């Protein structure tokens, strides 16, 4: 059923998408600000379910690429995202029937709506990560061996590039990343087009609705001064893993990624127990008393214990009171092929994946 999103839904989406960002994905504040202004100007956006797509429908996947810090200076421009979509349409010689999100986690969870507001296209309630991940091959469509090209990249000054053909998703990531870097490390992109059938088979479904529900639960708890973490766990089948205080953050960049480890000291019933999380933009592996207890693709969400809002790996700092929860990943990532793409070894951790949700 096609439904119009209210601005309140989008406010909730911003809170929920940041939580599903699992530490990365960029804070959705600037995309949210764009949506507020677009709604004030009279624009509206609509959500549809994947099963409403005809098998031969064409779906454009919208994402911003680059360093969040650059976005803080150049801001985010909704028309530029729309141009990435129309460039892809020109390249394909065919119009899209709908848009979707590559990555529900973080700012990319909202960007398809920024383009959709200008293009009058509905947005499919599906994405290809169900969270945030740092690279293009870490998607359900890459696990499904769907085509990793073409990719369109535009910049606000009018630059337009298309990565027309590459042998693999990893190459798509490498070539597109080079173009993005030349643009000034920020680009609006339209990812490889998908048919309705592909979206239905390989999309991760209901994720925008999920992000809205999580955000709405947190915002309601904030209004009522009740426990926001409990509110999240009442709408999602998640697990509370730990409560504590940040006592150390070590960061370094390697190969263009922000890697590091955060150490926590337990509070309340976790007093006396130590917790660490290793990250590569996103939270990757969490260990309690030096034993790995939670790892990708399970979603590791670090939340501000008071507000329930997400805490990101770029901004987490000493002394913050946080609660760590896990949310279940899409089944697509639990297959051997899925784990090759996004399991702990894909991030350099020699661990056999074990979900906190497997009994």
């Amino acid at each position, binding site marked *: 059923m096609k439904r119009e999103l209210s601005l309140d839904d989008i406010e909730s989406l911003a809170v929920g998408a940041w939580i599903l960002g699992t530490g990365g994905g960029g804070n959705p504040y600037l995309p949210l600000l*764009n949506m507020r202004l677009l709604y004030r100007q009279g624009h509206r956006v609509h959500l549809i379910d994947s099963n409403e797509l005809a098998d031969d429908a064409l779906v454009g996947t919208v994402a911003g690429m680059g*360093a969040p810090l650059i976005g803080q200076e150049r801001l985010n*421009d909704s028309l530029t995202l729309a141009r990435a979509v129309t460039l892809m349409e020109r390249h394909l010689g065919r119009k899209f029937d709908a848009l979707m999100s590559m990555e529900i986690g973080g700012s990319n969870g909202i960007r398809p709506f920024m383009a959709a507001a200008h293009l009058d296209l509905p947005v499919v309630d599906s994405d290809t990560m169900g969270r945030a991940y740092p690279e293009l091959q870490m998607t359900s469509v890459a696990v499904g061996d769907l085509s990793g090209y073409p990719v369109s990249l535009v910049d606000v000054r*009018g630059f337009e590039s298309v990565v027309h053909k590459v042998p693999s998703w990893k190459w798509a990531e490498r070539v597109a990343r080079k173009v993005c870097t030349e643009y*000034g490390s920020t680009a609006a992109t339209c990812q490889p087009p998908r048919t309705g059938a592909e979206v239905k088979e390989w999309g991760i479904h209901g994720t925008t609705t999920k992000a809205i529900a999580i955000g709405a639960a947190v915002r309601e708890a904030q209004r009522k001064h009740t426990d926001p973490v409990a509110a999240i766990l009442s709408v999602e089948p998640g697990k509370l893993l730990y409560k504590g205080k940040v*006592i150390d953050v070590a960061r370094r960049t390697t190969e263009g990624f922000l890697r590091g480890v955060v150490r926590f000291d337990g509070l309340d019933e976790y007093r006396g127990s130590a917790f660490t999380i290793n990250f590569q933009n996103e939270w990757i592996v969490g260990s309690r008393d030096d034993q790995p207890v939670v790892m990708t693709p399970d979603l590791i969400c670090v939340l501000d214990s008071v507000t329930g809002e997400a805490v990101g790996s770029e*901004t987490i700092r000493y002394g913050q009171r946080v609660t760590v929860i896990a949310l279940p990943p899409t089944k697509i990532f639990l297959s051997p092929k899925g784990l090759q793409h996004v399991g702990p070894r894909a991030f350099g951790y020699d661990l056999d994946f074990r979900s906190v949700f497997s009994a």
Partner: protein
Amino acid sequence: MRRIGIDVGGTNTDAVLIEEGKVVRAVKAPTSEDVTTGILDSLKSLGSTGVLQGKKIDGVMIGTTHFINAVVQRRSLTKVAALRLGMPASASLPPFCDWPEDLAALVRGGVWMVEGGHEYDGRLFMPLDEAAVTKAAGEMKAAGLKSVGISAIFSPLDPGHERRAAELVSKIIPDAVITCSSDLGRIGLLERENAGLLNAALADLARDTIAAFEKAIADSGIAAPLFITQNDGTVAEAAQARRLPVYSFASGATNSMRGAAYLSGLSDAMVIDVGGTTTDVGQLKHGFPREANSVVKVGGVRTLFRMPDLLSIGLGGGSHVQLASEQGPLKVGPVSVGYRLLKEGIAFGGKQLTTTDIAVATGVLELGDQKKVAHLDAATCKRVFAEAARMAEEAIDRMKTEAGDVPLIAVGGGAFLIPEKLPGVSKVIHVEHGDCANAVGAAIAQVSGECDQIFKDLSRAEALSAAQGIANDRAVAAGAARASLATIESEDMPLAYLPGNSVRVRVRVVGDVAAG
């Protein structure tokens, strides 16, 4: 060194005289509606014993909440022309786009966006469209706007476009007061621009207030330069404070913490500042408050300022006390009688039971009339103190960044609420003149310089050293003596997704005010 420190608070205007590192005299006077009368009164009271007679004063340092109150209360603000250099980027989020509508309506004189700005590595994003800047300036002039806020993409890395645009605007509007966002540092265009626009909105108020401060000092017969204390515990010369009033937004709390460090002789400790209504808890690192790392909202506007990281709770000397009854358990605060304590407290003949009444009943304080609170039994008072201690303990634990026990300095008029022993605290330190710690902090303030920018293809050590050089030069330009400079903050943040070895480095140095 002989300095006078003045803190203009919501209730009292405190003044201290410090000579060769010692507090010679500390006084309090009620804060006046016009601010300057309170300063005159406190200076008169400070000098009433003749301590200022025939003495050369090296500086008068004033901490004031005047500027932040103007923003919060939406008064005395100037209409601002916003000029952003960054087109075609950022067009969908124009200046003032995330301001509360009531404040935007007061301040927004007009918005102009033209091509310009840089990239993260210093390359040009777009050449500056000088003709468009000149045309914008003409329109500003026609609209009668004289206060201008200029922002450009990545201007903290290269302020060239903002400076050039300021020149061009000055040619068309010679008496324009211009704020460049690069003077306010920090990466994050909207937040930096917001800080610049707030600063521009305070142009007239800053000019008038600082002139009034200078007059109050002169009228008191003191011949000394005026300094205004800033959010980070340092001072700016009057001329710079007039240009950048937003830097003085949160100086009150900072001054208390700096004063606590000075009076106790400790540079690394927790500080609890118990006022009449609220208690602020913060942490001293190298004698300065630890700074908040995140976005700070001022009057509803998101900004990035150097602000101390503080936790405020509703506990103070005027806090309402509700004794345990059928209606509920014992409760202290958050409501307070505030400056009406001397009228409304029970010990003073009023009807509201406050924490001060409890202290009077137990003999901790000798104030008011102890007979009026004689009905409060010792066990009850003990429970109230225990509740206040519990609230303080929780706040301290929240703000601690290390697991072990740390020393705690208790200052402020309500410091009597802090017991000698608290869990998680190695030692509670009460200091002489602790009730005027804020004015002491103002009197001892130093000068700072900061660098926050991205370095590429340098080793970590090289990047840190380059940043340090820039910060040192800025501190000297702000009036510090080079030989006294010390680095008090240094952090580096590798940047995800940027090519090469990009690292964002932030260094802050401080030094003593150079002898005039």
